[in-house]
């Protein structure tokens, strides 16, 4: 287990090792839902919530169940099932507490299941053999990092609507260019902390 403070991991996951802009995970929903700021806020919050829960549940499942049984190669299936269950749970909670948020998120909520950011953070956390608190910090930080990136991109895309974009770059193309510029901005944080 690397001897890194959970606070450092939390900071690193948001800025220097942003799961989206450095590890490129969760791009599909990042591009699909970053049309307007409110939707981005809602999905970002949901992803953050699910990623914290998944990190908290995934580490014990891996180290207490799969490793003793020698079934590490089943990690993909186990994590996917775990994430699907948690997403179902979050959907039920949101449906009860906030009808408007539920109506806004609609189709995107189940899609968190196949959001590779969540599965990716599980796989990274296991392969870097983090402890429980470190995993929790990594999950929370990755969620917040994704949240920050998607909301910032949504804000930028609202401005792009008034610009003249070459027809072949409209939609996804220009979004990827903007994301690349954001990745360059985040490179400014590189080297502040190391987590491996």
């Amino acid at each position, binding site marked *: 287990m690397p001897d890194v403070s959970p606070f450092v991991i939390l900071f690193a996951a948001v800025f220097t090792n942003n799961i989206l*802009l*450095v*590890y*490129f*995970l*969760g*791009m*599909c929903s990042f*591009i*699909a839902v970053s049309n307007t700021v409110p939707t981005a806020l809602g999905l970002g919050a949901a992803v953050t919530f699910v990623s914290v829960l998944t990190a908290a549940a995934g580490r014990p499942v891996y180290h207490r169940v799969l490793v003793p049984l020698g079934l590490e*190669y*089943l*990690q*993909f*299936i186990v994590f*996917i099932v775990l994430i*699907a269950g948690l997403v179902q749970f979050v959907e039920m909670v949101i449906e009860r507490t906030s009808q408007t948020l539920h109506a806004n998120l609609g189709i995107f909520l189940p899609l968190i299941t*196949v*959001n*590779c950011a969540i*599965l*990716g953070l599980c*796989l*990274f956390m296991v*392969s870097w053999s983090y402890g429980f608190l470190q995993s929790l910090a990594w999950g929370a930080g990755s969620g917040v990092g994704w949240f920050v990136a998607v909301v910032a991109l949504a804000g930028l895309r609202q401005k792009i609507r008034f610009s003249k974009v*070459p*027809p*072949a*770059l409209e*939609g*996804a*193309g*220009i979004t*990827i*260019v903007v*994301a*690349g*510029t954001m*990745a*360059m901005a985040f*490179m400014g944080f590189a080297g502040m902390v190391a987590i491996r």
Partner: protein
Amino acid sequence: MTERAQNVKAPAMPLALRIKASPSYRTFKAQFWDDNPLFRQVLGVCSALAVTNLVKNTLVMCAAVTLVTACSSCLYALVRTATPARTRLLVQMLIIASLVIVVHLFLGAYMFTVSEQIGAYVGLIITNCIVLGRVEAFATKNGPWLSFVDGFAAGCGYSLVLLAVSIPRELLGFGSLCGYAAVPESMPRWNIMVMAPAGFFGLAAVIWVCRGLQLRAQAAKARPGGK
């Protein structure tokens, strides 16, 4: 594909036309170019950005994705009539996950260094939207052979874009191609090409070129008298 086209009894047609008229060819072309998963549907972007700084990793990743997409479509098409609609997502995910585990174990056994570098992204093929998208959109309605072709074509379309992004990145970033030196030592290396932003810009450039070509072809078709 060609063998199948030759079996069709249409002796008057030349071979090239017969191939063009076959459903396999049309399925292939739709996924490979017209509705390319990356530059038309913008799916599977994550791995497209992450593994493209080395051509060798890209080739392995392309092979893995093509294999998983083709086989999972084909396997699901085989069991599609026996699967109740309500549990189909579960069945699809299990098929995909099993195939990915096989690929992951194979890479770990035979290509250890590559597996160390892109291992996590191979695992993430499970959540690659291209795979699930093809299974759900095509294999639920078509037979095993066409589904195989469809998945294979989607994988090839993905590979096309990935190679187009990765070759310039490795050439300019490391000055090599597949690990062999290809650019003289005197030329400075572009460090940015190895890092994250270049992945985004490279992919955007490929999207720009391919969409531009498609839009031009559409415009030529729409013009009266154009081909």
